[in-house]
């Protein structure tokens, strides 16, 4: 990476928090337009648009507003509910969904800071989940010890999978994007295979599901049986704090950031780039692996092929939205948890397809990846520079050759 042409990651990191917020707003607006466009009442109103244009606009507004209101009821606070429990249940659901996403995203963020595009949270999560499940149903131990072993196991599984990528990358220079994508397939197929062997398959079952983990291996519920929210959320919050310390206060974090920002200068200053690349991926994998334990030992209780859902991929978006900053990632993970929780309610209540949530999520990435687009939409203009940049070299070649006569 030469300093003149900032990489994709560099450009993402350089975009401000304002851009992140505006990207969310812009995505919701476009999402609203899509909801309106697919809404039946709105489409039927457009047939007489020229006669009564306000009907169309009103219908469109209602469609979007109702859908987003339903999403809010499903994700934050259900003001229509009759009991207090039902009112606050959506918020706890959001936090529950956010739990695995949070640690997985932190993993992606740490790798970003080391200059590594870690697409492999999915595979790392699966490995973590396999370790956590196996420890969870084979061992028979008392509660805190068993759970602790489960967490350590999930960390180990993810760390192995991530560390392998770091090691190959540092050793051979193979690109981490290719490595992580390929290892995602390996992890998924390994899981599918083991779920059909006695190692992980439930005895007596022909389906690819694991036995249930013991109660002593579960994260206890935080707010009683009515809510799914479990201790794993607090563990994830603690992990956020730890990653903040790692990246902002520790010497290892300093090394990771140095290697990520300028590998050459880091090497010249005596930083062992090999060690840092491997360690960054070990940490990234460990955090993603923890998400595996949060899935199985927090909510699912047993392992299936779909344990990772799309968490590993959403984690990339969350890390981008949070600008690889642990605190930013925390709030971004909450937002995405809310999408998951609210999307279902939205579909049930208004018939708006849950896919619209995916569209909004994708639009957020799109807008974040193109800060100038967001700035021009909101009329912010380019950030002021004290001095103009000299015209781009290519343009200059053409211009001096008289090409713009």
């Amino acid at each position, binding site marked *: 990476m030469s*300093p003149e042409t900032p990489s994709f990651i560099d450009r993402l990191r350089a975009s401000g928090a304002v851009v992140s917020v505006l990207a969310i707003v812009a995505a919701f607006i476009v999402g609203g337009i899509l909801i309106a466009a697919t809404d039946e009442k709105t489409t039927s109103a457009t047939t007489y648009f020229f006669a009564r244009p306000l009907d169309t606009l009103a219908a469109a507004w209602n469609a979007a507003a109702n859908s987003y209101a339903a999403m809010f009821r499903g994700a934050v606070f259900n003001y229509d509910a009759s009991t207090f429990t039902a009112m606050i249940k959506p918020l706890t659901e959001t936090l529950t969904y956010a739990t695995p996403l949070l640690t997985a995203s932190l993993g992606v963020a740490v790798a970003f800071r080391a200059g590594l595009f870690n697409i492999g949270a999915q595979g790392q999560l699966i490995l973590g989940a396999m370790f956590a499940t196996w420890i969870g149903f084979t061992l028979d131990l008392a509660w805190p010890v068993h759970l602790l072993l489960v967490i350590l196991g999930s960390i180990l599984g993810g760390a192995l999978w991530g560390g392998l990528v770091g090691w190959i990358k540092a050793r051979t220079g193979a690109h981490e994007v290719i490595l992580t994508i390929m290892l995602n397939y390996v992890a998924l197929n390994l899981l599918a295979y083991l779920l059909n062997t006695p190692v992980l398959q439930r005895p007596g079952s022909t389906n690819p599901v694991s036995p249930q983990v013991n109660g002593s291996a579960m994260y206890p519920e935080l707010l009683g049986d009515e809510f799914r929210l479990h201790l794993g959320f607090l563990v994830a919050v603690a992990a956020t704090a730890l990653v903040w310390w790692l990246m902002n*206060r520790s*010497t290892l974090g300093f090394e990771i950031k140095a290697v990520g920002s300028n590998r*050459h200068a880091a090497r010249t*200053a005596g930083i062992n780039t090999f060690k840092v690349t491997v360690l960054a991926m070990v940490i990234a994998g460990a955090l993603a692996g923890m998400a595996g334990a949060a899935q199985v030992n927090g909510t699912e209780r047993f392992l299936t092929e779909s344990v990772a859902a799309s968490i590993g991929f959403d984690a990339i978006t969350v890390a981008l939205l949070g600008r690889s900053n642990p605190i930013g990632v925390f709030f971004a993970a909450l937002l995405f948890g809310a999408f998951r929780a609210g999307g279902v309610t939205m579909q049930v209540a208004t018939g708006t397809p849950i896919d619209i949530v995916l569209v909004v999520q994708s639009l957020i990435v799109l807008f974040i990846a193109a800060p100038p687009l967001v700035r021009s939409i909101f009329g912010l203009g380019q950030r002021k520079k004290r001095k103009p940049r000299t015209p781009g070299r290519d343009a200059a070649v*053409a*211009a001096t050759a008289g090409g713009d*006569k």
Partner: protein
Amino acid sequence: MKLELKGITKAFGGFVANDSIDLVVDEGKVHTLLGENGAGKSTLMNVLYGLYEPTEGEILVDGKPVHFRGPGDAMAAGIGMVHQHFMLVPVFTVAENVALGDERTKGAGILDLEKTRKAIREISDQYGFHVDPDALVEDLPVGVQQRVEIIKALVRKADLLILDEPTAVLTPKETDELMDIIRQLKGDGTSIIFISHKLREVKAISDEITVIRRGKVVGTADPSADAMELASLMVGRSVDLSLGRQHSDGTDVALEIRDLTVIDSLGVPTLDHVSLDVRKGEILAVAGVQGNGQTELVEAVMGLTDHTTGSIRLDGVELLGRSTKQIVNSGVGYVPEDRSTDGVIGDFTIADNLILNRYDRHPVARGGSLQPAFIAENAEAKIGEFDIRTQSALHTASQLSGGNQQKVVLAREFSRELNLFIASQPTRGVDVGSIEFLHRRILAERDKDVPVIVVSTELDEVAELGDRIAVLFHGKVMGIVPGNTSRDVLGLMMAGSTAEEALAEADAARLATTENDEPQLPGGIA
């Protein structure tokens, strides 16, 4: 062509890059624009060349006001420009590059390069350029590429040629050849605007000198003016160019390099059995044209190269095979040649860059945890001590000018007790005021009895700082000569003569001509 710029002002928002500049270039004269980096020379030339629209002021060619909307208009009016970074397409031939932007076709879109080839040959013969129209540009040496740029301008019938820092990329010999070319062009009536901050060249070639500082003309000078006077005018305060340094023979040998050989990824030796000694309290200057093994030499000492054989002993301890961290921690200070790539991390704050190679050592860190209070204190202290011009230690290094970035690097390296100090191109791209400061700090380190290696492609810097001078050519040491060796001898050695051959040849040349050497000027500014 007679060119007049009247009251040219160019503002970018609130920043005034050019402030009512007046300039008159007479026909057949070399007019030099002298100024530091960022003084506004390039902006002014871009205005003249039609790349920027002036905010105020007018341009007159032969007394008539003109208005350029782009380089095409400027070229049509007879103005040609050779940019500091060449505007050539490397995979095109010379003829294709010259034709670019002015392509003739035989109809049906087929290029007619024959006319261009003929024109190139004519110009090449007239000025002795020796340029083959069918050579690929990427295969040509830098000096020849520059001639292609000049040909491009001449083919378009330029009567006025702007040369923007033309010697920055040239070897001493190529520089001399360029000077001859400029004299010939001048003889044929071409006006030249010569942009430079190297006083020696400026004094040798100019008819008139205009000095620009912070976007304003601060004065004009005669080429016969004293170099010190020109430098002071350029910087805006008096500059003492002579460091007034004492020669030092050093004491005990501290660094012994024996048979050092580095093989690159293609299996070619970039450093070939190099043996050098550096004594305590002396500066060994390593001279040579860029790419003759200097980079590999210092990187080998720092443990940054692979496939290295031989021996590097510092105070009797073998460094070869140790990690860069071990070498740094054993007290080796290093200023890398490519500051922005290897010296600082642009995204990091100045404070963090100041601890880049001791972030894990007491008192910067304790138990794996950085100590922000110490890092902030250290930054304040170093910013003061090294006069790093910044508003805050929390600004990123990329916001600093080249000279200030280099001060950050130097401040960091001098924060420790050193047993060896290596500075590679310490003043490249650094303004005059900073050069003086950087040189003094390097000398001060030598005077603390530290062995110092200074690698430079600038002959003046080599001569100014070196107690002894080693010249590298194609990865071999051509000889080690005393610090006061003449430029001619060094130039010959840099072109591949051994010290003995170079001395003999220089003597012969001196007998043949009675001309005296020009007075020696120090630093990258001369």
